[in-house]
């Protein structure tokens, strides 16, 4: 199952499905790194609302993605980690350190708007 990646304005939005294999996750990682360049995206949202389990491989891949995307000059935010998934992650010892998180898509967009505004947009406040 391939993760659909949506281009929305300056951002890319990847929506992870429940039954995602390791290979699918790695494909998503590579697709995001490539498309950020192709579309000159400023930010990436990975929506994990539907994800049933965030194990150490998924957590590691998400943090790899955030690091790769940063090196490509864009920001990443993970949205939609459910309470029970957050609980399992914490018990397992996964922290997603250095990776931005937000409640849902809307908050994630807010985060990116803010995070990328400083750098990318409106160098002159009077033009806003």
């Amino acid at each position, binding site marked *: 199952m391939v993760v659909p990646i949506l281009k929305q304005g300056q951002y890319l939005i990847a929506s992870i499905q429940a*039954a*995602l*294999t*390791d*290979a699918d996750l790695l494909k998503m990682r590579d697709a995001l790194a490539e498309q950020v360049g192709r579309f000159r995206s400023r930010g990436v949202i990975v929506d994990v609302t539907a994800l*049933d*389990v*965030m*194990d*150490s*491989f998924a*957590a*590691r891949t998400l943090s790899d993605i955030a690091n790769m995307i940063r090196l490509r000059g864009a920001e990443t935010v993970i949205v939609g980690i459910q*309470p*029970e*998934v957050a*609980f*399992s992650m914490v*018990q*397992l*010892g*996964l922290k997603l350190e250095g990776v931005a998180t937000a409640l849902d898509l809307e908050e994630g967009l807010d985060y990116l708007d803010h995070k990328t505004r400083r750098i990318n947009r409106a160098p002159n406040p009077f033009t806003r």
Partner: protein
Amino acid sequence: MRPTLLQDDIRVPITSDIDIVYARQKGRELASQLGFSSSELALIATAISELARNIVRYAGNGAIVIKLVERGEKRGVHIVATDEGPGIRNIALAMQDGYSTSDGLGLGLPGVRRLMDEFEVVSKNGEGTTVTIKKWLR
């Protein structure tokens, strides 16, 4: 006291990464029949995911067996991850947070112990690894 079996067990052969997803879905399904909370189901599915991945990564193939069991007053889920791979060379090290012989986070085995109520690993060099975990209904 040996736990008694509540119903037929499920055996998921593990040979590739699709099986990891399948095994954890099956585990969740079976455990939910006992009435575990959604948080507990997530813990159980996560534990299966970690053990199944270790089989694929370190042994190539093996199996996950999931059963519902009863011991005295307690009912729970009993999961065995087994393979005939190379075995774990140093179990004490493997149980430490952050220790990995691959490029993993090294949180799988110690993390699974934290997630479950009971945890046992038996491994013999060149003969394989068996991890047995249990979670009891509260």
